[in-house]
């Protein structure tokens, strides 16, 4: 019944959209007097041309994977969780407490503990807006926005007044002990003979994020719980008819969502910074919204979108390192990518559909 073959929908449309975004970005780069071709080369080689580049690209992608999945799960339940930012902040707090308070013997155990802490704190931060939505009808978009601000204030208070080591200028927690340092991709791949950049921050969390993608996929499309979440998201009256409790699903979906957002902290806090800093999340919660929307809330789509954004971040960093292109340009490029692949995709799809319909009529 579809007008276009699947490959056109899945590959051609995003590709052409991306191309349009690239062309417009090139124009902007030219407008500020730089060379767009060199810039693109720099971005591609910087982000994908070496294991070092990949290490950073995947590091960023890991963050976006968690927040993107978080937004997606809530979306499937018909809930717009804008609170990924705050939930990831709290996840960081969970990780920091776990790593600082418990003397872990080995990183594997620490990872389990920290993941639990991250998920628990993230979920807890999502629980209140979820409860208010389910029981009081308080719009989850407002409450999660509010909880982002509250989380920032809470963290600021804790890091400046409570968790900061005496005398340190930095509003950050103490460094985590050596035992909880997570292995980087270099550490993981070296034993099997693959050499991977030592410097890049991508670490074992990336694998956990990929695993999370698979699990979320299983959850949503292979379990009755996921089935209930999706049903409720599509139609509340129908869900009620089927005996699916709106309260339970709202709570569960938001807890999972918050937990996923919180889990981002094992990548940036435990894996990279190895201490909790004030601005650890740096907007990944919001990028997660774009990633989920662009990935059409499907774990595989989220994966691709997250890697795309990882590429943009790392490519942007390389641009910033070796050229005088201001960092705002990178923001503009990101915006154009989001715009063309996410919002203006029909601009590409509509004429393509007409084209395919014509060829089909022509041949049939």
């Amino acid at each position, binding site marked *: 019944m579809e*007008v276009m073959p699947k490959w056109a929908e899945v590959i051609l449309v995003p590709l052409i959209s991306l191309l349009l975004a690239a062309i417009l970005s090139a124009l902007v780069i030219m407008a500020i007097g730089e060379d767009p071709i060199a810039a693109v080369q720099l971005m591609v080689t910087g982000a994908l041309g070496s294991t070092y580049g990949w290490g950073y690209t995947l590091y960023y992608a890991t963050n976006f994977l968690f927040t993107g999945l978080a937004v997606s799960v809530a979306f499937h339940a018909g809930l717009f969780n804008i609170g990924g930012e705050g939930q990831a902040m709290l996840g960081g707090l969970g990780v920091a407490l776990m790593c600082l308070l418990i003397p872990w013997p080995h990183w594997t155990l620490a990872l389990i503990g920290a993941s639990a802490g991250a998920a628990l704190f993230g979920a807890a931060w999502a629980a209140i807006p979820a409860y208010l939505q389910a029981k009081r009808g308080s719009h989850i978009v407002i409450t999660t926005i509010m909880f982002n601000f509250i989380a920032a204030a809470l963290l600021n208070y804790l890091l400046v007044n409570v968790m900061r080591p005496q005398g340190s200028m930095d509003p950050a927690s103490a460094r985590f002990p050596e035992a909880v340092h997570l292995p980087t991709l270099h550490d993981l791949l070296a034993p099997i003979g693959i050499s991977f950049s030592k410097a890049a921050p991508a670490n074992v969390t990336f694998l956990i994020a990929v695993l999370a993608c698979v699990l979320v996929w299983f959850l949503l499309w*292979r*379990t*009755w719980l996921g*089935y209930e979440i999706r049903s409720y998201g599509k139609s509340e009256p129908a869900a009620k*008819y089927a005996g*699916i409790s709106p309260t339970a699903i709202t709570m569960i979906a938001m807890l999972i969502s918050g937990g996923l957002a919180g889990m981002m902290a094992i990548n940036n806090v435990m894996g990279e910074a190895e201490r909790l800093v004030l601005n650890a999340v740096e907007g990944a919660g919001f990028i997660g919204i774009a990633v989920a929307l662009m990935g059409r809330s499907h774990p595989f789509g989220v994966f691709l979108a997250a890697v795309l954004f990882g590429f943009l971040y790392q490519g942007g960093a390389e641009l910033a390192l070796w050229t005088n292109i201001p960092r705002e340009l990178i923001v503009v490029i990101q915006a154009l990518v989001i715009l063309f692949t996410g919002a203006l995709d029909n601009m590409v799809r509509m004429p393509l*559909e007409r084209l395919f319909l014509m060829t*089909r009529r022509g041949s049939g």
Partner: protein
Amino acid sequence: MTADDTSGRQETAAPAIELKGISKAFGPVQANKDISIRVMPGTIHGIIGENGAGKSTLMSILYGFYKADKGEIFISGQKTEIPDSQAAIAAGIGMVFQHFKLVENFTVLENIILGAEDGGLLKPSLSKARKTLLELEHEYGLNVDPDAVIEDLGVGMQQRVEILKALYRQADILILDEPTGVLTPAEADQLFRILDRLRAEGKTIILITHKLREIMEATDTVSVMRRGEMTATVKTADTSPAELAELMVGRKVLLRVDKTPATPGDVILDIKGLRVVDDAGVERVKGIDLQVRAGEIVGIAGVAGNGQSELLEVLGGYADGTGEIRVSGQPLDLAGKRADGRSRRARGIAHVPEDRQREGLIMDFSAWENTAFGYHRDPSYQSGVLLNNAAIRSDTEAKMQRFDVRPPNPALAAKNFSGGNQQKIVLAREIERNPDLLLIGQPTRGVDIGAIEFIHQQIVALRDKGKAILLVSVELEEILALADRVAVMFDGHIMGERQSAETDEKELGLLMAGVGS
């Protein structure tokens, strides 16, 4: 507008509407194929056809809602371009859609003037419309409270608003798409009286319906559509229901439910003093007692909005009630945790909800996902912690086969099936569970006669297996044909019970109006 200026027009020989070679495709779906039709002024022209035949599409093209890929439109002999509804309205066409196009939280008056305001300010438009409305009401007996909010009105009233909307725009040609699908017999009768009146004034009416009786009683000519094509146009006087049914489905159709007398067994459903208060705090069911036995069909008749829906909702587990309900002797929770759809299903209660698109199906889900809907936690659909999708799919395929769902493609999304086939998916899901008690609301609403025949057969077959069936329908005809016993609800009470063999539409109609025993 007076009778004088319309009578003159009646004499012109040109058809009020002439469509020539209309074709329309939705993506790969060819909804209308080279359709031509002529409708004479001052007549009622019926259009029938199976679900998905393209009736609504054709009329939407005439009304400028869709744009035809090919073809020409002539209004009163004049070739007319109708690129949008504005043009259709200007050409004197009004349309009452199958799914009403009303703004739910606006008042009647606001809906009526929408798009037909006089000037930029609302006040003068509203007062003028109020006056005109009064005249129209007077003229046609269409009483509606102009200040009522649409969502508070019953469907019958909403339909009147739609008709008034068209009349307010001085439509000479009125298209009605399945207007009686949601009306009570009394409301339908009233509608046809109004249509007669309009015809007498020289207005032209196109009537789409699935009900052959209405075609036979109300129309002058009738066209039959099948799979996007116009297969026949005949004078109503020259045809018969059986012939029309055959023309439309392509085979002989049984127009009557074929069933043996019931042999009721034990009491399965036993309701005592049930009361239901809705979200707004209004008591909708005011203490009813009712029993349904194994092997019988009990029909609940009544004008929509008299508590039948709430009754079904409580039985189905998604509204709270007070009182006592026993199923097979065991009490049923009416509130709290165990009063939900899942617990009900566990107790052997299956439920075909009144609104299949809102409740019975997830329109974006595939047919196979919908087949599991409500039963998704059933052990036979699980393998370990995971859903056994393969099992659900093969189960769906079998059910689609047995219920003749077309197309028999489990992967197709529910929204891509026609209404009749959507209903079959729901029925297959619920009936094939072999429940002790089947709750079924409006089983054939908006469904074509071929499918109606089939659905009725399935319900009777379940009864003959010794199951209890509670049927709620606003179609008296359906209730009389299907139910063994009829209870009539009015204002939250049961006005009376009758054996269906011993009663008729007239008696039930009185009970439905709150008059009687």
